Each structure stands twice: as C-alpha cells, then as structure tokens.
C-alpha cells in the first residue's frame, strides 16, 4: 500500500457536519456566578442545587487545566465560551414530540435518528440533547410500565429530587478534576435513568448529543442508577457541525450499579474531528465513572472516532465483593486528531475482576495514546485484572503510545498486561488486492478485524453502525 493510497483513504468528509438553522437563546460568552444563577434559574432549580453548582464553580476557580495528558492544544479561553444555548421556541420544554420544532426533528432525521419512527420500530428509547437542552425522550410510556425512569436530568431534578440528591456527584465528586468541576457548575442537561430493583430494562436506552450553536460548550450530565438485581444497556451517540473554531464538550457520566445489578454503557462518539489541517473540531474532555457494588457489573464499550482532542477515561470503582468491571475500547485517530484515552479499574472489593481490551488505531499524522490505571487496594483479596492493549498504525506519519499504570498493594491480586503494536502491512494489502478487493475495502476489513473483540461487545445494530463509521473515518487513509 503506497503512502498516497493511505493518505487519500484517511481523508473522508464528515457527514454530520451540517448546521441547523434554528433560532436559539444563547448566553453571551463568559463565566461567573451570575451565569450559573441564570442557568439554574432557567431550569427553576431548587436552592440546594444552585448552591451545589456555585460551590463547584468556586472549587473550579482554584483548579488548573490538567496538562499531564499526551495531547497538545492552545490554552482554552473559558470566557470565550457560551455556557448555555437552547432552541428558542422550546423554552417551556416540549410536552410531546408534536411540540418539538420540526427543524430539530429534521436535524435528528439527517443524523439517522428519526424519533418518530424510533418510537414505533426500533425498540430503542432515545433521549436527544441538542446544544444544552433535552429535546425529546421517546418510549416513555412503555418504560414507565416497567417502572423504568428515563428522562432529562433537569426534569428528574423536579420529579425525583430524592434520587438526584442522593446520587448526583456520588461517583464523580464536584472537585474530582478541572473539567468535572466545570461541568458540575454549568451542566445544562443530560439523561437520567433509574432501573428499579429486579427489573431488566425492556429495551436499549439511548441518548444522542448534538452541538449546533457556534462558540457553545456542551456540558451534559448523565446519571444512571441500577437498583439491586436490575439490568440496563445504554448507548450514547454524538455529532456536531463542522466549524472552524474549536468547541468544548465536557461531560460527566456517573453510573451506580447496586448489588447484583448490571450496567452496560456503550458509546459511539463521532464529534467533528476538525479538517485535514487540524482546524476546528471538538475538544472532548469527559469524565465517566461507575461504582459497582457486591456481585454487580459495569461494562464500558466505546468506539471513539471523532473529536480534535479526546481526553477520556471511563472507569470502574469495584467497591463490592465479586464485582466486575469491563472496558472495551476502539479509538481511531486520523489527520491531526489527538486522543489520550483509557480507563481506571480501582479494585476495592474482594475477588473483584476487571478486563480491559483497548484497540488504538492511528492514521494520518494523528497521535493516539492509551492510558490505563489498575489499582489493587490492600483489601482486594483475590482480585484479578487482565489488560490487552493493541495499537495499529496506518501509514508512517502517525504515533501510538501506551501508558499503563499498575499499583498492586495486595499480594493475592493478579494483574496481567499484554500489549502489541502492529502496522497494516503492505503484504496484507497486497493479499487483499490480489483477491480483488480495492484498497479502501481492504483497509476497512483489516481494521475491522483488528477491532473484532470490541465490536462484539456492542449491541448488534450498533456494531454494524460502528463498523461503518470506522470505514468512513478511515476514508482517505489509503491512496
């Protein structure tokens, strides 16, 4: 495979890059306590939550932008970002899909999420977050029958205040890190899920995030609580328009799996990655963490293809005995994208188990880093971890890095780590082409094969989507 083949194959256009022409209410850029009061007031929040936000903001002021990640970007001017944007005629919130702005619905249809049809057909309940506001949640009726709560987090603040008060910030504390503190201060919306005791959620739940407005940050917050013995599978998808300036996305996701519960959280992240020269694109600085109680299981699966800069470590705190944490990740970087992603498995409970399978693919001039921490605490008797960390290079101008951290303070714990780095070889390409496959098909087949162990963890329909997305993201990586 020649370098030109690779280059042209990698540079495919971003298909979700359109802008929706919609009137919106956007706060002027800048952050201070009044902005936070405004956001909280807009949502008619209770006093405790406003205080909570303000305390997070004051903590944030004392913190510094983290610089340990293997990514480089100009210092972000947080006063140039707008912290709230909502489509104008939705300020009272839609009561049903019929009240949702048709332009918005058209946007989601363009993205392949027809809310109407999804409600009828797919068996996937969707919460769609557009800029800062949750637009519509489908399938509510059916979920309510099972006792499952799936709504926007602003709504949950009013409807289920005890649950929110109990769990918000319980997994990712306000001052956990710079971006978590920022999110806690200004989060606008996001999804809330509660699965009652012993209930197996009857369908996949899904959230689509979309950043539309220019110069707007998106700070959504997701909280999922699986009560004892329950099960839920949740999928998150993300897109944004193509814009020349960088946009900030700083989300927080918290998962709570109580005894014997299981949460499967899958992400297909396709934020705008910037153009071939590295102009524009999303800064994706996200904190995702779950706490697993006795005999419970939390499984993160992520397919990361977008964003200019990604900084993200979905983690598990394995608090309970026999709790299980899993992390399956495909991170693809192309052109000038940078990703520093991985996971943390914190083993506290006895006989807790974790598995990490990370597949990094670098193409173009991109840089792709895996960063993972496995910590065995002194009381985690018999805990086990298995880590497999594979990097695939396409072309000769990209980079792959691996930063594994292992801390074991229990002699009975077992930690295994395997790592490989390989290239899409000329010989593999030649074999495929000699059998009649063109270069694009050959690369996508080889890359898909490389990712197989992760794709099989995704819900079926999303595995197909992920495969296609990979194909699109790789376009132009071969010439």
């Amino acid at each position, binding site marked *: 495979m020649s370098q030109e083949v690779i280059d042209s194959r990698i540079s495919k256009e971003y298909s979700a890059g359109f802008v929706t022409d919609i009137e919106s209410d956007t706060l002027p850029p800048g952050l201070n306590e009044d902005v936070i009061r405004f956001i909280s007031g807009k949502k008619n929040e209770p006093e405790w939550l406003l205080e909570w936000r303000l305390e997070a903001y004051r903590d944030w002021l004392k913190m510094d932008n983290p610089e340990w990640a293997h990514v480089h970007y100009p210092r972000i001017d947080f006063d140039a970002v707008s912290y709230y944007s909502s489509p104008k005629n939705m300020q009272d919130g839609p009561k049903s899909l019929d009240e949702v702005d048709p332009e918005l619905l058209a946007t989601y249809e363009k993205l392949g999420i027809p809310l109407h049809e999804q409600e009828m057909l797919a068996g996937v309940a969707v919460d769609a977050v557009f800029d800062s506001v949750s637009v519509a949640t489908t399938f509510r009726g059916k979920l309510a029958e099972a006792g499952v709560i799936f709504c926007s987090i602003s709504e949950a603040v009013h409807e289920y205040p005890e649950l929110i008060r109990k769990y918000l910030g319980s997994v990712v504390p306000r001052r956990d890190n710079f971006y978590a503190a920022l999110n806690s201060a200004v989060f606008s919306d996001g999804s809330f899920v509660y699965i009652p005791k012993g209930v197996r959620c009857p369908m996949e739940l899904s959230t689509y995030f979309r950043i539309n407005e220019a110069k707007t940050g998106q700070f959504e917050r997701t909280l999922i609580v699986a009560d004892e013995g329950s099960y839920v599978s949740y999928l998150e998808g993300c897109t944004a328009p193509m814009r020349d300036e960088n946009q900030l996305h700083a989300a927080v996701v918290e998962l709570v799996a109580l005894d014997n519960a299981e949460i499967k959280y899958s992400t297909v992240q396709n934020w705008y990655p910037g153009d071939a020269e590295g102009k524009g694109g999303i800064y994706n600085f996200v904190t995702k963490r779950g706490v697993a109680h006795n005999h419970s299981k939390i499984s993160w699966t992520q397919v990361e293809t977008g964003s200019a800069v990604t900084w993200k470590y979905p983690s598990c705190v394995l608090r309970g005995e026999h709790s299980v944490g899993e992390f399956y990740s495909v991170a693809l970087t192309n052109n000038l994208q940078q990703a520093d992603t991985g996971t943390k498995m914190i083993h506290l409970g006895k006989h807790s188990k974790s598995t990490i399978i990370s597949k990094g693919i670098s193409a173009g001039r991109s840089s792709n880093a895996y960063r993972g921490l496995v910590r065995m605490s002194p009381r985690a008797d018999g805990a086990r971890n298995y880590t497999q960390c594979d990097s695939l290079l396409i072309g000769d101008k990209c980079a792959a890095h691996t930063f594994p951290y292992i801390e074991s303070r229990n002699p009975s714990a077992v930690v295994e780590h395997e790592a490989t780095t390989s290239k899409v070889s000329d010989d593999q390409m030649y074999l495929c082409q*000699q059998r009649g496959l063109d270069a694009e098909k050959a690369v996508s087949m080889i890359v898909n094969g490389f990712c197989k162990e992760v794709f099989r963890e995704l819900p079926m329909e999303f595995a197909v989507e992920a495969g296609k997305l990979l194909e699109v993201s790789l376009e132009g990586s071969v010439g």
Partner: protein
Amino acid sequence: MLKIENLHARVEDTEILRGLDLEVGAGEVHAIMGPNGSGKSTLGHILAGRPGYEVTDGSVTFNGENLLEMETEERARAGVFLAFQYPVEIPGVSNMEFLKAAVDAVREQRGEPAIDAVSFMKRAREACTAANLPAEFLKRGVNEGFSGGEKKRNELIQMMLLEPRLCLLDETDSGLDIDALQVVAQGVNSLRAPDRAFVLVTHYQRLLNYIEPDRVHVLADGRIVRSGDKDLALHLEDRGYAWVEDEVA
C-alpha cells in the same frame, strides 16, 4: 491467453528480469524452474501487480489487454490469481468474510450480483472438503495461526472459489509434506480446464510428478534460457541448474 515480451523489471534498485519472453495458451500448464534468485517469484508478482515491483521495459498482454496498465485488484477481478509462497495473516477477519468479499468483488466485475449466503456456504464447504480441511476452518481468521501446510491449502480454497482464468502458483510446494502436496496437486488438477491456464513456479521437480506440465521453462539471470517438455524437468533434477547455466554461458 498470456503473452510476455522482452520483459524487464526491477525491485528497488536491482534489475531482476532482463528480457523475458513467455507465451501461455488457454488450457495449458507451464512450469517455470530455476535456481534461487533467478527471478521466478518476481515474475509472479509482476504479473499480479505487486506494489514496488517496477516494469522498465517490455509488454504483457492478458486476453489481448495490456495487463501492466491494470491495478492490482483489476487484474484479480479479470481472473489473474496468485497463490502466495508465504500467505500473510489478517487477524480477526474470518476466512469466510474474506472469501465472500473476494468472490463478490470478482462477481461485481462480471456484472453479477453478490452471491447469496447459502450458495456461498455450500461452495465454500465443498472447497474445504477438496482441500481436506474441516469446514470450521472458514470461521478462523485469515491464515491466523495456520500451519505452513494449512496456509497453502487455504490458497487452494481461494483459487477454487474465485475460478480464475490464469493461476500463478509461487513455490506452492515449498514447506509441504508429501500428503499435503498431493492434496494441493489434486486440487490443481481438478481445476484444469480448456479456458484456464496455470503457471507453476517451482524450484524442485517433485511437484511436477503430480501436476503434469505441458511446457517447462528454465529461468536464469532474468531470462528464459531453455524451454522443453516435462522431460526437461527430469534432466534438471539429474544434472542441476549449473548445467543449464554453463550451457548458456
């Protein structure tokens, strides 16, 4: 079917083929023999269109078309098949997925729709049986963890499914035990057809005990220095390549 005239080719800065002429008719089996480094394998790769192999002079036509102007995958779709000496692994891509994609690429070229899964499976299983491999083989990654013999038999399966017009076998006999060699030879013989030609590149005569060639050519120093019928191979076996080289000199 295949006509090569005055072919000169180089790999990086080394000239390997220096004025090679060869004509192969439909239905014929030709064996190319020669000492190590004579350019036998290079010939196969030049015909298959391996990137980095550069033709500096001469012409190659395949069914009247200029083969050298076609991309690697276009040649494959037109019916040129190279059975590799060292088939490479593609981890995670199942043999079945790979074979179906290849079959569909060839069919698309012929203006046929993609093969349906049921017919494909039936044909793939038949090919496995012919290659004396269990059908579970289809589920494994392409050449992933295969033994040398399994890899060669896997090439045979691909050849059977793709139904090429021109089959180039690059030292297919190397690394095969006698049983595997017979399986591969039987497979090749079963594929012999009036509209299909074979070029067997081999260092040893033993493959030709099982696949009887119409013509045998000796390649030395980038050219064909001697051609004959199957007896030429036996002579070589007796007297070694030095005999031909001395004679040419």
